[in-house]
């Protein structure tokens, strides 16, 4: 995994602005082909599938809610690489 995408797996990232964090989340979700899962979480929480249309507070909630899915994806990919 690239370092820049791995950033989204870390809880506190003072080096990233909120906007950068959202973009990083979207980029990582795209990398894992998990945009559908991200949209499902947005719909479920705020009745809107697009994270970029939500308020900053709502975006933070989505980021926290989606992080376990990204950690899972990262773990699965790493396990596959180790097996390979």
């Amino acid at each position, binding site marked *: 995994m690239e370092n820049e995408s791995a950033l989204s797996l870390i809880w506190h990232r003072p080096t990233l602005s909120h906007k950068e964090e959202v973009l990083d989340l979207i980029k990582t979700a795209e*990398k*894992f*082909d*998990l945009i*559908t*899962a991200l*949209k*499902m*979480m947005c*719909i*479920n929480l705020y009745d809107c*599938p697009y994270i970029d249309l939500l308020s900053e507070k709502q975006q933070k909630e989505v980021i926290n*809610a989606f992080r*376990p*899915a990204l950690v*899972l*994806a990262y773990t*699965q*990919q790493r396990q*596959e690489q180790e097996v390979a």
Partner: protein
Amino acid sequence: MLEYTERRPATALILEELSTTGAQLLHIWNQSNGHLSPEFIDYARKVLLMAPPATPGDSPDILMIGTESFARHVFGSKWAQHPTRARKAMPQTYRKLVASSYWNAYQTNKPIFDLIGANLSDESYREYCRLILPVHSRAGVSQLVVFTQELPNQASRAISSIN
């Protein structure tokens, strides 16, 4: 009340008898060959997204709890606020009772449909049907889409007569 899990074939005919939503989700899964396709988005509020099970003897971690899901209805909104803590907040005996189908769906990469009667808490015995859809992203990430719905009276007997 007697606790049980009974597996049924995950076919459109059987699902339609109990749940239009379940049948639609199965259709999406079939059409997408198990891919987590955008068609699932419309059903986000009704389903759970779960991690693959780590063991056949316990239910998997929960990633998302739909606001209109049966699980949120029976376990409560407070329980549903923290999906990552929700699994451990369920009774261990219940988790063990319902675990094997998650494992089988993940291992076989095929939908599993079953009927369940369980004590969800000390004073809450419920009968419900559950559809487990193993899905994967194009990057190889595996998850489970799980839809559950309470059985109407006599439904479990009716479904038995179909088989």
